[in-house]
């Protein structure tokens, strides 16, 4: 299958490319990048005319059509073409809670959001702490998944935080990192040993930083909103204290530490200082943490309830600053589906988590890039080359010979978020009704168009 993507603004943070060029894809790889790919003398195969991605077809597309031997020309004039986005943090819920999401629906949601690869967390049922669960996930993904699925294995058996999981076997089965996400590893000794052990396989340890004693029964950020609403609060220190601990443990063990879903200003500060010291720490922030604050919880809105919670405006500003100065390496969604019944309960009782695959790119463009806070290339890097670097995946870049995982998006398209139109099985988003700018046009995985608008 040969596809020509013509006339798009190709942005590849890994190589620094940002120009209007054509891309030729064949057999799942990028085979040619150039201004004038149609150099060779060939005819369009197949009788049907290639589709226009955008209403009218550009000159490049028209030219290309007449000169190259391709199965399809995609007209990318006015659109951005970047390496396929990678979401380092999603919950696919399968095995165990297929009512909330499955690998099929979760990856389709990812594709709709422009992602070509996701890392799924191990807090499934059963927990992904053995080869059999990892293989089940990979097999299911191969058969039914729309995008690449890279499983994250458990740090501890059953996520119980007591004994190490068989990390070696998890690595051999295909896990790209280990984490007990959903839960912290409260026992420092266990975390230390996990870091040392995972280090043998050069696996990054992804830490959900939370001191369960400090967070207690908390359901929102400990701040003015929790005080007014009479809800139990989770202080920022619950996250920051563990961030500090994990950074020190990473220094002790020379591990590669990746801090999940950073939400507090103190955490950003600690990570910044650690990086300056040369500690091998990276971290991620979610779109809901850079777009919202604790105010979103008013009215007891359970679709704004997640862990770590939405914090104060000064925390949000610290996250924006961290994204800009490189302290925060990655944007990841922590896509956490829950059924409508689950979320339609009293605030205390409703489960933590919001979905994010289908709004991440648009929020990044609308909130970070449009305001001038983050240049487009850097924003794309945080969704492509940076996660690829941390996970040591041969992805996240556009180069001749590289895998044809590509995202084509329209930076100007305005649209309103409609949770009921999502590909995800779940609807728990705080952004329903939001007007956003920037939307996925097509998602290409291994050279095949897995989703288009």
């Amino acid at each position, binding site marked *: 299958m040969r596809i020509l993507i013509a006339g798009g603004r190709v942005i590849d943070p890994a190589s620094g490319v940002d120009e209007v060029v054509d891309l030729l894809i064949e057999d799942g790889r990028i085979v040619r990048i150039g201004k004038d790919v149609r150099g060779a003398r060939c005819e369009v195969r197949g009788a049907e005319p290639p589709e226009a991605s955008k209403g009218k077809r550009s000159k490049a597309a028209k030219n290309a059509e007449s000169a190259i031997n391709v199965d399809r020309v995609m007209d990318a004039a006015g659109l951005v073409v970047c390496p396929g986005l990678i979401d380092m943090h999603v919950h696919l819920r399968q095995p165990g809670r297929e009512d909330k999401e499955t690998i099929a629906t979760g990856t389709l949601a990812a594709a709709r959001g422009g992602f070509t690869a996701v890392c799924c967390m191990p807090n499934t049922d059963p927990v992904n702490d053995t080869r059999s669960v990892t293989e089940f996930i990979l097999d299911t993904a191969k058969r039914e998944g729309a995008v690449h699925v890279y499983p994250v294995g458990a740090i501890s058996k059953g996520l119980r935080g007591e004994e190490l999981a068989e990390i070696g076997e998890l690595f051999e089965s295909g896990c790209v990192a280990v984490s007990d996400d959903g839960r912290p590893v409260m026992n420092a000794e266990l975390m230390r040993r996990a870091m040392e052990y995972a280090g043998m396989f050069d696996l990054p340890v992804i830490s959900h930083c939370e001191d369960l004693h400090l967070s207690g029964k908390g359901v929102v950020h400990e701040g003015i909103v929790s*005080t007014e609403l*009479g809800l139990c609060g989770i202080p920022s220190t619950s996250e920051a204290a563990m961030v500090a601990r994990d950074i020190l443990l990473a220094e002790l063990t020379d591990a590669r530490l990746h801090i999940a879903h950073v939400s507090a200003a103190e955490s950003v500060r600690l990570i910044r200082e650690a990086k300056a010291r040369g500690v091998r720490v990276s971290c991620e922030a979610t779109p809901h943490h850079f777009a919202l604050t604790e105010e979103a919880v008013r009215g007891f809105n359970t679709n704004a309830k997640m862990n770590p919670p939405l914090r104060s405006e000064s925390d949000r500003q610290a996250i924006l600053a961290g994204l800009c100065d490189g302290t925060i390496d990655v944007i990841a969604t922590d896509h956490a589906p829950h059924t409508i019944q689950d979320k*339609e*309960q009293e605030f*205390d009782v409703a489960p933590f988590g919001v979905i994010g695959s289908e709004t991440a790119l648009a929020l990044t463009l609308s909130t970070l890039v449009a305001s001038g806070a983050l240049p487009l290339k850097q924003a794309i890097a945080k969704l492509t080359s940076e996660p690829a670097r941390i996970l040591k995946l041969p992805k996240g870049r556009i180069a001749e010979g590289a895998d044809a995982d590509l995202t084509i998006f329209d930076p100007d398209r305005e649209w309103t978020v409609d949770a009921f139109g999502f590909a995800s099985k779940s609807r728990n988003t705080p952004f329903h009704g939001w007007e956003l700018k920037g939307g996925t046009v097509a998602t290409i995985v291994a050279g095949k168009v897995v989703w288009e608008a």
Partner: protein
Amino acid sequence: MGLARKDLLRMQDLTADEIRLILDTAESMKQVAGRDIKKVPALRGKTLINLFYEASTRTRTSFEIAGKWLSADVINVSTSSSSVAKGESLKDTGLTLQAMHPDIVVLRHPASGAAEFLAKQLAASVINAGDGAHEHPSQALLDLFTIREKKGRLEGLKAAIVGDIAHSRVARSNIHGMRKVGMEVRVAGPRTMLPCFIDRLGVEVFTDLERAIADVDIIMMLRLQLERQQAGLFPSLREYSRLFGLTLPRLKGAKSDVLIMHPGPINRGVEIAPEVADGPYSLILNQVENGVAVRMALLYLLAGAPQAG
């Protein structure tokens, strides 16, 4: 006239005028208690459901009497937390009730926001009888009524609310209510029981009881829940009552005509000494008496209002 709202969920929503209307109406309602025949037909044919997810004799009985004196049909539904965990969600309970067409549902529930949650589902008027640590508006209203009855006015009075402010819906409702009618409010308690940013609600914050009650007109003591010791918020009952218990000697620093209030039930000897609770300036029993009148006023003002839609 009338409360132009379907539900009474929190003091934070009410205007000063609405509070005055409720208090004035309660004054007229209070007379019914003095009659031989304690019944008026104002809510005849209306159905009131008391849906209490937390045990409460005081508040539930108060609403029940209020409904019955207004000739409403009153049904009490008590569910212990275990049946909640076992079976019906609050949402389903709401839908089930809605199918029975009650006119008013009074809800007490351990989760903050529960009353609002239910109100969204029911066409009936929902009265919040206490949702988690969030609000307990009828308590604050009866407290204001009691103060006004004794002092003849509200504006300019100084009140100190003492105890576990962080977990107290009575404290939150009273803070909002008192501020709206022009009272000065202080809160006092151990540091571990004062929520962050509470000063942003317009109150002065103290961790010293004697300084907190110096010169105030009203001292409102909150009940100490013994579970808080388990949660590590204070070391022992002994220490708590030593530092924050209201005793006669402590009262010397307050005004000579200071009034003592407590939402009940009291822990005698813990947050309040028996001689203070039973003393001449204690309004604790007045509060209970006025609770019925204020709740009658609420039922009348909500059930008599034209239904939305």
